[in-house]
């Protein structure tokens, strides 16, 4: 068992290294570099960068060196715990991401709580009363949530919130609290702003979860032991919740690991529309600006989260399902 974990960890390191190379390559796929992007964005906003300025920038940022040299430099920095300087921001990459990481995780966790909190009870209900009216109704609503493109929902919800409820347009804080230091009122302000993003983000995953929960639980409920429990006189609640639900939840436990990258990145598109200060829009803008260190670090971070998540999932699965523990490996 221990040998297995150690082996997986070593493989994980290898995987992460491969991801770093891949992410660096992906960022360099588009032609041009940060300076091209900078000139273009200046031009689009009615300004200009002169040739001398551009050349100086390029040299100063080391963009005129070959890609392998840049990669080695980046790796060297990372091993020292320094993720480089975000070119557009003029701040260390770790600062820029760090600022947003907490909030991203808060929103993602809120979305996950919303999704699971709604989906699991509905899934259980649907399994216990299959093909009933409410079953169909919930399925339909859940699916609609899955089918509506997230960004559209975000835009509509944001506009409706502003037009009819006078809510702040987008963002996570009221304008007065953005700069303010953390306090109880600020936390409360944040909580007031969380429902919209959480719902928009969570709505898509709800349907999927309901369906899986429903089918898992249906499987369990048809098993003989359930009938036995009922025959034994246990209350319906205990019959369902005591064991079948726990078994039906097993597959979910192993999928928790896969949520890890999502928790860290959030949703790019919905965050963009709702103007949430999360890592998602940061990545997108970094990619557009070809801000190599910032984009590379975020992609690397996501990759690492995925690897950790997979490892966690596999371990949890093994712990939960003895067949795999003894069988496969």
């Amino acid at each position, binding site marked *: 068992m221990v040998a297995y974990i150690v082996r997986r960890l070593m493989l994980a390191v290898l995987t992460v290294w491969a991801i770093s190379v891949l992410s660096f390559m992906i960022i360099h796929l*588009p032609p041009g570099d940060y300076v091209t992007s900078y000139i273009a964005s200046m031009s689009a906003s009615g300004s200009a960068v002169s040739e001398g300025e551009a050349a100086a920038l390029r040299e100063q940022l080391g963009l005129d060196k070959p890609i392998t040299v840049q990669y080695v430099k980046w790796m060297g920095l990372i091993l020292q715990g320094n993720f480089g300087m975000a070119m557009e921001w003029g701040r260390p990459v770790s600062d820029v991401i760090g600022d947003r990481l907490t909030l991203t995780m808060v929103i993602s966790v809120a979305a996950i709580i919303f999704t699971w909190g709604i989906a699991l009870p509905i899934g259980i209900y649907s399994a216990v009363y299959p093909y009933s009216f409410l079953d169909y109704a919930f399925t339909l609503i859940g699916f609609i949530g899955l089918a509506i493109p997230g960004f559209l929902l975000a835009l509509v919800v944001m506009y409706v919130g502003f037009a009819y409820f006078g809510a702040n347009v987008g963002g996570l804080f009221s304008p007065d609290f953005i700069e303010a230091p953390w306090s109880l009122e600020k936390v409360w302000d944040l909580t007031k702003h969380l429902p919209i993003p959480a719902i928009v983000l969570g709505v898509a995953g709800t349907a999927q979860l309901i369906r899986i929960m429903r089918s898992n639980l249906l499987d369990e409920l048809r098993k003989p032991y359930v009938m036995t429990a009922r025959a034994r006189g246990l209350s319906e609640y205990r019959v369902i919740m005591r064991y079948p639900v726990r078994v039906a939840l097993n597959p979910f436990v192993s999928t928790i690991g896969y949520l890890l990258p999502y928790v860290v990145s959030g949703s790019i598109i919905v965050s963009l529309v709702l103007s949430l200060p999360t890592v998602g829009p940061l990545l997108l803008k970094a990619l557009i600006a070809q801000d190599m260190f910032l984009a590379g670090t975020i992609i690397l971070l996501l990759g690492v989260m995925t690897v950790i998540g997979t490892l966690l999932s596999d371990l949890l699965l093994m712990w939960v399902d003895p067949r795999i523990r003894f069988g496969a490996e």
Partner: protein
Amino acid sequence: MKSMRSARVQVGLALIAALAMGSEAAVAQTATPAPAKIGSSLIGKLEGPEIILDAKVFPKTFKDAPILAEQVKAGKLPAVDKRLPEPSQLFVVKPLREIGKYGGNWRRAFTGPADHENGNRINSLDKILTFDYTGTKIIPSLARDWKVSDDGKTTTIFLRKGAKWSDGTPFTANDFMFWYQDIYLNKNINPTPFFEFQINGKDGVMKKIDDYTVAFEFPEPYPFFVSQLAGSTAIGGGFATRGGFQNFGGAYAPAHYLKQFLPKYSSEEAATKKAKDLGFDSWVSLLKNRYSWALNNELPVMTPWKTVSAINTPTWSMERNPYFWAVDTAGNQLPYIDRITMTLAENTEVANLRAIAGEYDIQERHMGLAKLPVFLENAKKGNYTVHLDPALNGSDATIHIGNSYEGDPEIAKLLRNKDFRHALALGIDRDQLNEAFWLGVGTPGSVAPAPDTIYSPGPEWNKKWGVLDLKQANELLDKVGLAKKDADGYRLRTDGKGRLRLELVTVGGQFVPYTPVGEMIKQQWKKIGIDLDVKELERNLAFTRDNGNENQMIAWANDGSEMIYLFPRHALPVDAAESHMGMAYAKWYASRGAAGKKPEDPEMLRAFDLFRSAMGASEEDRVKNAKELWRIIVEQTWSIGTVGQSPAVMGVRIVKNNMGNVPERQVNAQHARTPHSSMPITFYFK
């Protein structure tokens, strides 16, 4: 409310009936101007504050803002007359309407650390010279006055005695010399000389005459240098704007603060160590970071406001500079407004929605013309007024021909053929484009600037090759050798490779809807038998391809071209940093023949000569040359104009109704640093 609405509907319907009767004619081919220009109700009179230059009428007593007065009382700041320059050396503004009140927080939107122009343009008074509110007259700004020597080789500027940096340190010619010797000439910091600081390839030098006088000397006559100091150029654009993000420009810098980052004043090791300790990989990176007023709130500045919370945080906020060197005619130290707070909008849709909600006080940046109906609908609820400020350039969405394109020899040959370009230009129905994408508010025409600008060759040049004439277009294409067509009516190539297909590169998500314009032109060119492939690319990719001469045609802006000498890149291929109509030619011009490719077109060579000679010519000759240049540019149609002179870019201005001294219309131009030319220091909260 209901009766108001029905009255409006009736007026609307009456107008529609009137227009409908005329619609038959209006929808027809060539442009018959509609009765009243749509949008005129929102375009006001061009107005702005007057700068008082006569020292005899300057105020003698001074007042300052309450929040500063408090600090004076607490002993934290010297009294206002100690903070201002000497009374005869002040920058005195007569506000547009009335003397304003102190106080208030100006709320705006910004979109991230790349949006520093947003703040730069409000804070551009630290330019050496500047343009007045009409955008045509050069007036003093940071410098009190200037003089050009008779032989045109030396431009001397006179600084304001007693002016101080925002931390109270005196501002003198030493700050200019520090910049020149320690920053500009230091190859580690600035490898390439600024082309504005050269005449005909020869460098100029800066000399200190005395503590408050600086001279720029050139080996040859360079009278245009004054305009370089007034425009948004690397040398004259001001320390704040041209400093950090735009690489050490501005012509002066706070020596007393920046010395600590230079190895010259400590040692190479000490400077490098200092940088590495703060997470920068070299002392140059650290210097660059500390040089930027938007990133570094400790940096002393000469601007009206200074940064409190940096641009790379969710809120970019600024507060007043207690040592700012301007007063109004009553002696009140400017600016009136205490704070500016910009909140981050991750995308422009949110910024627009917040503006509609009334969350911004004055906002002209990022506001979309297509949303005008929504802005108007909510104006009452949001308590703001919408102003439209038309720009001065001829074409917002310009089809720049890749004059140095070489990828496909047949197409390259056609693109270099003037008749072919004319035919393409005549095949565009600009009224359609105007109606669909500019809400009818733009002016269809060629790339020539607005007729009332100084370099305009005349109003007839806005229409030359800038109207719809299908007959002539088809005739020209037949003449060029493209008379044969295929079964669908598209012209065939002369080299036998089938249908002639042109490619237009567009970029999505900009202020101007390039891709939809391209799509509509694709439909229109069917009528002249041209098959157009519209390719929307990511902006960087489009620019990279331009740099490699790979684009046949690209739809991009032509803003700034109305001041062709200050901002030529959208009118002529002369700038090697950015050129959409022939990067190879631009490189050739910029390197004086050392790199790039020489144009074969004699007219382009003539244009280059005219352009080059302007730098050293007298004002009168320059204007004459510019008009000749524009005549060549329009006649050659190296870029095809569509619809311009419109408020599409930074021309939709939302102003809350409680703001004072805000002009009805401001000049919307690059060189005027809109909204700077309207003197934001005189805006106030009523």
